[in-house]
């Protein structure tokens, strides 16, 4: 999998400080979440589409593959909203389904928001190294090291957890375990997986924490970093590009209407 996620070329987006990039993207997401202006959100989707397809450094083929779930979620959320959304100017009605002008508007807004979120998310994820992101969060945004290292340790242990899930799944299969139908069955299923998984994970986390403290890791102590991160000229470029594009998108969406 990691090989698949290697870009063709490292674009300027890779050289932006990862923590700064994250903060700006989250800010944009909050902004998008709270707007109700369809034109504005559509232009944002276009903007981030360009950012993802043009500047992430990945071939179009891979990006298109990654975009399939985004298109599906666009379609499914938009159609559900169109059929069941509220609205008075009814265009078509059949039983419980009712399409109105407002519900089409709401459906498109919802779908476009999902699309924008998807593009922003992929643009961030495809151009960031997780470990460096946490180091930058510690150094540039003063995230306490205890959170950052806990996250890094947990992420490093992901493959082990996934393997444990598969082992458990096979074990249940070999033993011929069957689950009840309905809600009770879901409970049984969650319990069958969660109990051994969490028992192991808790013990493992405890061991790691004790090992780290034995090696003199202290919460809140002043420290140096193995990977130094800093701001660079690229961060200025990034902020410039984002502000200019947001400003022009707002101009087009709000002023020209």
């Amino acid at each position, binding site marked *: 999998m990691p090989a698949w996620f290697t870009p063709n070329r490292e674009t300027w987006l890779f050289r932006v400080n990862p923590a700064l990039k994250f903060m700006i993207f989250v800010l944009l997401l909050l902004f998008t979440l709270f707007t109700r202006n369809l034109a504005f959100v559509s232009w944002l989707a276009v903007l981030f589409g360009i950012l993802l397809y043009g500047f992430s450094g990945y071939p179009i083929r891979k990006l298109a593959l*990654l975009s399939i779930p985004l298109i599906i979620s666009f379609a499914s959320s938009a159609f559900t909203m169109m059929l069941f959304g509220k609205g008075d100017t009814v265009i078509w009605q059949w039983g419980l389904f009712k399409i109105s002008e407002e519900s089409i508007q*709401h459906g498109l807004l919802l779908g476009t928001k999902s699309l924008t979120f998807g593009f922003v998310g992929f643009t961030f994820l495809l151009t960031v190294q997780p470990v460096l992101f946490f180091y930058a969060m510690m150094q540039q945004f003063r995230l306490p090291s205890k959170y950052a290292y806990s996250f890094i340790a947990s*992420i490093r*242990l992901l493959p082990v957890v996934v393997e444990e899930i598969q082992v458990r799944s096979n074990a249940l299969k070999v033993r011929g375990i069957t689950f009840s139908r309905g809600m009770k069955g879901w409970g049984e299923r969650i319990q069958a997986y969660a109990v051994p998984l969490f028992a192991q994970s808790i013990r493992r986390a405890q061991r790691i924490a004790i090992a780290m403290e034995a090696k003199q890791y202290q919460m809140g102590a002043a420290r140096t970093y193995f990977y130094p991160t800093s701001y660079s000229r690229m961060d200025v470029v990034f902020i410039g590009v984002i502000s200019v594009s947001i400003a022009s998108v707002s101009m087009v969406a709000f002023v020209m209407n």
Partner: protein
Amino acid sequence: MKKLTFTDLLITIMVGVVFGILMKFWDDLYTVVKPMMPVARQLLYGMWFMTGVFAFLLIRKPGVALIASIAGAGLSAFIGHGLEVLIYGFAQGLAAELLFAAFRYRKFSMVIAGVAGVFSCAASFGLDMFYGYADLETWALVVKYGLRAISAFIFTGVFAVLIVRALEATGVTQSIRPVAKEEYSLLDR
């Protein structure tokens, strides 16, 4: 108040991350069910509210519900569910955390856990209103979020509590929970 040690914190975040992975597998099930059975789909939704409540029931210290919820959402975001889930994770964890805080972090019953799940559900509903998921006809709105709240109660109040009880039986919780005064006084006898 009982402060979080580094071990507690690492366990909290690990629990959140493991939930993030479980939710990935759950999501596959959810995606299959999604188009066919809208009711079942909403009833499956409660899984997304479990993380914070479960972590709190396990470790029983302040801050745990919020941190675990953010960690779980962070992992979901990291494996490609979109950065917006972080905002949801934060809101849901905060809602559960506030409820536990209102009881001074001393109540761990099924009802409190279930209500915490419903609080998380309400917080996600608040965000859905801004997102645009809630612009539904009134009947659809009531059915959708009503089922979701019921699901939240079942998953956090029943399933999470049962899993924690099973974990207590295995003995792993003994070493991570704060020691009560009575247990110290046992030493003096």
